């Protein structure tokens, strides 16, 4: 059952990501991404991390992507980019893809693949780890997020004055 679900979810996830990349319309791309995030949440649930699964769905599919789609629907983008912009986008995305590949290889070097973790992680354990062992990274991340939020508000305010 778990194996069947795994292959179902992961194939839908990969299909959704492909759909996101290949679709010409930005709104459809965003919707495909939502589907991918939801499947990713399901995969987290399968490997015994229900808290991660639900948080993935609440934050990415339920909040962030809603805002993306909100903006896309409001401003009604034209389909596709101009050929001049497209050149730069392709060059830039190739560089980014290479960097991501390098990161993935480095990250998975030490990890042992092929064995599934036993049992499931409760929200309690995650909370305890976040507030003891990983307290500093956690706090630094929240400061970063607040800085980004304040920055965004400041940028918007300046434009309004002019």
């Amino acid at each position, binding site marked *: 059952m778990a194996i069947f679900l795994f292959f179902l979810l992961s194939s839908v996830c990969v299909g959704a990501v492909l759909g996101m990349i290949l679709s010409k319309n930005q709104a459809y791309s965003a919707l495909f991404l939502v589907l991918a995030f939801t499947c990713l949440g399901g995969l987290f649930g399968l490997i015994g991390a*229900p808290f991660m699964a639900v948080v993935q769905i609440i934050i990415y*599919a339920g909040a962030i992507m809603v805002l993306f789609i909100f903006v896309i629907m*409001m401003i009604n983008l034209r389909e596709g980019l101009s050929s001049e912009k497209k050149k730069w986008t392709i060059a830039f995305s190739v560089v980014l893809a290479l960097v991501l590949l390098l990161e993935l290889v480095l990250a998975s070097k030490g990890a042992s693949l092929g064995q599934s973790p036993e049992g499931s992680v409760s*929200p309690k354990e995650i909370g305890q780890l976040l507030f003891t062992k990983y307290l500093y990274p956690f706090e630094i991340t929240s400061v970063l997020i607040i800085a980004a939020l304040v920055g965004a508000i400041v940028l918007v305010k300046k434009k309004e004055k002019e």
Partner: protein
Amino acid sequence: MDIVIVLIKIVLALVWFLVLTLYLTWLERKESAVIQDRVGANRASIFGIRILGLFQPFADAIKMIFKEDFVPAFSKKFLHTLAPFLSFFFVAICITAMPFGNDIMVGGRTISLQIFDANVGLLFVLAMLSLGIYGILLSGWASNNRYSLLGGIRGAAQLISYEVALGLSLVGLIMVFPSLKLSEIVQSQGGLLFGFLPKWGVFLQPLGFIIFLFAALAETKRVPFDLPEGESEIIGFFTEYGGLKWGLFMMTDFMEIIIVSTLLTTLFFGGWQVPWLSADGFQFPWGGQWQMARWLVIIFQVLAFNIKVFFFCWLQILIRWTYPRFRYDQLMDMGWKLLVPLSLVNIVGTGLLLMVIK
């Protein structure tokens, strides 16, 4: 055997949910009629038997099924059709996480009266409710109609804003009953406070309850929070829908009322707990006792859950027909400037109190 039991539970829960939804439409008609000094729908009859218009929901359903299924020519057809189903699905699935009663023993087998007891059940319900936004956004956008788009955008903005308050108002509750599992939250509301008061969430988290009530009312998108619909100005995100698809949106509304009621019951009013009723009968704080058989206790508990849910459904309809609509800035002010800071105060206060007690 286990799969059969789960299937039976799913069918029973869905039947309960849909029948209650149907009859909420009847309750809404009758309650609004009483409030406005009318009689209300009373003509639907089978062989001349009317009984207060109790057949009206079935007449409505049959009418909706046989209406023309119209899809506007310039709409995005696939998304236009998908949207009501998304909206319906994400509300309907919430019922799987709700505990209807204590565990029962049948033939040496323990059966919990709950379909899916996830250890993050509370977050699961919140996640599914937040995914329900897509139904609104997509219906507004795919209809290719400005009024629908306005309604969809208003709806998404409102739901996103109030989700913050909704989530934060529950943090205090999670601190008091240290669990995200809905069955455990209900179990730990079984004790007594000061020897006589049932240990319900509403007595431990009064501020959290009020914030949750307001945020949850806003999540149902009904008057006084019905800006996405705005009957008198923009008609809302389902302007371009008719027949059964419109009916699905309508049903989603009523199902959201039920889900909010079950959440209020489960989190703040002890779920299936009856005050002073333990596994072998009533034990009153003034010393009286009333022995009861195990099966009778279970029936009492399931009944208590149902009565509490009905009460909150009734209360929400009462609120809907009593208050006028908020203005948009008032709505946003209330969400961000009142409910969110209050829920933060609630979290800090709860934390301090818990520390003092320990």
